């Protein structure tokens, strides 16, 4: 009898790493999107504002100081994550740190795409006639991939900590 259960895209294995079941096409698609986000970040467009949030909403001077220190570090983290994606693009397994890098990049892409699409809490079903249809589909697919990543990474955490 066939099973309709979906195989996890990232499965913890006995070696303490994760089996990496994404197709090559999807891996390359994710890397291209992360590269696009990196370019947008360099250009500092409005779509990337969620990647560099305010820390002190009521204190512009303090926030300016925070941004000077934080922005470069956040950029470095994102560049490092993209480098890990490129380096592990053809791997059959990922370490925890490598999967964390993929997850960070995928979430960044969702933040940028979601900002551009002005996603809301109560958005309606996908509209085939919408000019944003392709981007909405990409956004939903990124959410599905991210969901699998979170499930896999959560399995490594102690459920009763603190």
């Amino acid at each position: 009898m066939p099973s309709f259960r979906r195989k996890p895209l990232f499965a913890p294995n006995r070696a303490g790493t994760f089996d990496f079941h994404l197709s090559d096409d999807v891996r390359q698609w994710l890397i291209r999107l992360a590269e696009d986000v990196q370019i947008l970040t360099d250009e500092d467009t409005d779509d990337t504002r969620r990647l560099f949030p305010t820390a002190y909403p009521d204190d512009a001077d303090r926030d300016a100081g925070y941004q000077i220190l934080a922005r470069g570090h956040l950029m470095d983290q994102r560049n490092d994550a993209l480098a890990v994606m490129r380096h592990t693009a053809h791997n059959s397994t990922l370490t925890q740190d490598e999967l964390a890098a993929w997850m960070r990049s995928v979430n960044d892409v969702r933040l940028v795409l979601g900002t551009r699409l002005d996603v809301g809490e109560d958005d309606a079903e996908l509209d085939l006639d919408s000019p944003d249809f392709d981007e909405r589909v990409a956004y939903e697919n990124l959410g599905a991939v991210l969901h699998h990543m979170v499930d896999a990474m959560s399995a490594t955490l102690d459920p009763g900590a603190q």
Partner: protein
Amino acid sequence: MTSPIEVRETDLDDVVDEDKPWRVIVWNDPINLMNYVAFVFRKVFGYSEEKANRLMLDVHHKGRANVSSGTRTEAERDVHKLHGHGLWATMEHDS
């Protein structure tokens, strides 16, 4: 002969303000997945699954949650970690 030392009066109100604990607030946003937000709370703060889920639901239903507190330096460090994971976090303290 020693030079006169200029004594600047300390504004005690400023000192007291700095000593008050800062709160780290995570705000609801329609983009981040709920299970991702809970995962970040567990990873960054070492919270239990139950506590992380409770805070995540506070964020989702109440619009915000106080996820940690401490000195300004500690709060800023936590905010920076949350920003690194794409969460919308800010910090505040009682005036």
